[in-house]
């Protein structure tokens, strides 16, 4: 299948007219339609005719609009797409047709990439299993009895099964990295403000970040080059110029110091996950990197800190859904949405705001300082993405607190605002993918992608495909 190859290979084949964008979107739509019945990774698939028209007009152009010209992708259903249904996975927005485009979508359109469809997700991003959706729960393509992770679960599935070349996810507390890890793909949570949030359905505005998901660090770099940068429509985008992320991905690992934050490997981590991530650290050591044990003491409190902030911001952001200008009434929120809205309302209410919201803001400062301190000693941190591999469907649903604890390793990164790259690091003995994350300093996306690329040059976890689509039965 064509979509099993990297973006740069596709780019080359398209330029040499060995393949056409029409062929790519035909393959993408056929794969997506076939698997959606089982995996439920899409909420909306675009009409074939519209896709073919768009693809043939791109094929007819003499000069490519960008390196993503003619490449099929999908969006988490949290991004406003003009005249295309945008639900955020919720019945509140089940008939919402946006009158404008999110900046990230507009940039990809301008770059000549082709939107195949909109991916399933936990409603309003509340969840890390993709089960808190008002549509069918999405399934892990490696084992359909398991969750794909979330909240950007649909996007991770579509990439793992090669139904699209890449996708745009959204990460407030791990929502790109968690499903990337559980589905065996690569995902980048960027520095806060690196990519515009304009047109993204808001969850927690001081934490939300828009980022790419794809098969490899190399592909992510190409996408980031297109989507990063200041946006007059989002005053929190960084004025700092973006970088030529994809230009030179090679790096001398002998000059890299990798920190192993010991709290990320402490009690509660699944032994297989621990062993896989430590083996990845060893791979880096063999590549010449220096490993150093470091400490983030506040990690054990990070769930309480993060959720005090995230639920507070969510309660405020979701107050806009009043059924007047767009969307259904507030009764249509899921149980998880209502729980988070009420948790935040409580944390901000008179008499409790100082105890919860303000204390969490102070603890946020301490976390920022702890990260700054470890980054004086090392270039990046290497850590697991989630404490356990993908859970079975339904396993987490009845225990709201356990759902939150699954986010232990991902939430501090959003709280601090730094970037983190999640890439595949191995498989459990039951053949479920396990990822690791490389956490960097603010705006160190290029360095993270280089270090991730170095690992992917030495290993082939990221090239492996789930069995359900079976193009290679001999594996």
């Amino acid at each position, binding site marked *: 299948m064509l979509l099993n190859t990297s973006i740069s290979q596709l780019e080359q084949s398209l330029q040499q007219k060995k393949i056409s964008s029409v062929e790519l979107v035909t393959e993408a739509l056929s794969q997506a339609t076939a698997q959606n019945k089982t995996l439920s990774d899409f909420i909306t698939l675009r009409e074939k005719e519209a896709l073919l028209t768009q693809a043939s007009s791109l094929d007819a152009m003499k000069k490519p609009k960008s390196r993503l010209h003619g490449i099929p992708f999908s969006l988490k259903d949290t991004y406003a797409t003009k005249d295309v249904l945008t639900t955020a996975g919720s019945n509140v927005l089940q*008939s*919402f*047709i946006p*009158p*404008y485009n999110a900046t990230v979508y507009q940039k990809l359109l301008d770059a000549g990439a082709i939107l195949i469809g909109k991916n399933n997700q936990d409603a309003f991003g509340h969840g890390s299993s993709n089960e808190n959706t008002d549509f069918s729960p999405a399934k892990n393509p490696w084992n359909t009895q398991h969750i794909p992770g979330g909240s950007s679960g649909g996007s991770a599935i579509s990439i793992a099964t090669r139904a699209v070349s890449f996708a745009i996810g959204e990460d407030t507390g791990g929502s790109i990295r968690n499903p990337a890890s559980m589905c065996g793909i690569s995902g980048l949570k960027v520095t*806060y*403000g690196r990519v515009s949030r304009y047109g993204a359905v808001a969850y927690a505005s*001081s934490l939300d970040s828009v980022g790419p998901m794809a098969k490899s660090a190399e592909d992510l770099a190409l996408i980031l080059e297109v989507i990063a940068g200041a946006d*007059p429509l989002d*005053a*929190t985008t*960084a*004025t700092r110029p973006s970088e030529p992320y994809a230009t030179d991905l090679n790096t001398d690992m002998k000059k890299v110091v990798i920190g192993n934050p010991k709290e990320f490997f402490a009690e509660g981590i699944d032994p297989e996950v621990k062993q896989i991530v430590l083996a990845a650290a060893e791979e880096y050591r063999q590549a010449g990197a220096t490993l150093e044990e470091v400490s983030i003491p*506040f990690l054990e*409190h990070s*769930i*309480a*800190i993060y*959720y*005090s902030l995230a639920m507070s911001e969510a*309660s405020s952001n979701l*107050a806009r859904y*009043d*059924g*007047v*200008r*767009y*969307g*259904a009434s*507030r*009764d249509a*929120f899921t149980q998880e949405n*209502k*729980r988070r*809205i*009420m*948790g935040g*309302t*409580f*944390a901000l*209410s008179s008499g409790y705001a100082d*105890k*919860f919201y*303000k*204390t*969490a*803001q*102070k*603890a*946020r*400062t*301490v976390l*920022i*300082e702890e990260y700054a301190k470890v980054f004086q000693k090392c270039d990046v941190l290497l850590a697991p993405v989630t404490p356990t591999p993908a859970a079975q469907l339904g396993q987490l649903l009845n225990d*709201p*607190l356990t759902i*939150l604890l699954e986010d232990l390793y991902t939430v501090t990164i959003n*709280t*601090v*605002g730094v970037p983190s790259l999640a890439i595949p690091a191995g498989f459990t003995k039951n053949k479920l993918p396990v990822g690791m994350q490389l956490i960097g300093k603010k705006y160190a996306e290029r360095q993270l992608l280089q270090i991730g690329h170095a690992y992917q040059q030495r290993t082939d976890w990221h090239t492996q495909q789930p069995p359900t689509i079976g193009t290679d039965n001999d594996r």
Partner: protein
Amino acid sequence: MKKLPIKHIANLANLSLSEKELAHFEQQLGSTIEYMQQINQLDTGSASPTARVFNDANVLREDRTTASLTQVEALKNASRQHQGYFVVDAILDKE
């Protein structure tokens, strides 16, 4: 911790919940909030609160008109409209 004032919270959050839902959330939210209370034990020393992790401040643009939605586009998703306006429930008494 004291009993969670769940009815009051639902009211503040503008959520209408059945008695059954109220009982359900009282239990579930209660355990989550109890867990979150650990932040009150933290020693945050002299740390000042962080509201944002973004360094640029006062991002302004030139004061000129730019393209925006038309009235028709803005009203397109409204469940109730009247002569080009959104319709909302009355919040004041007639008297």
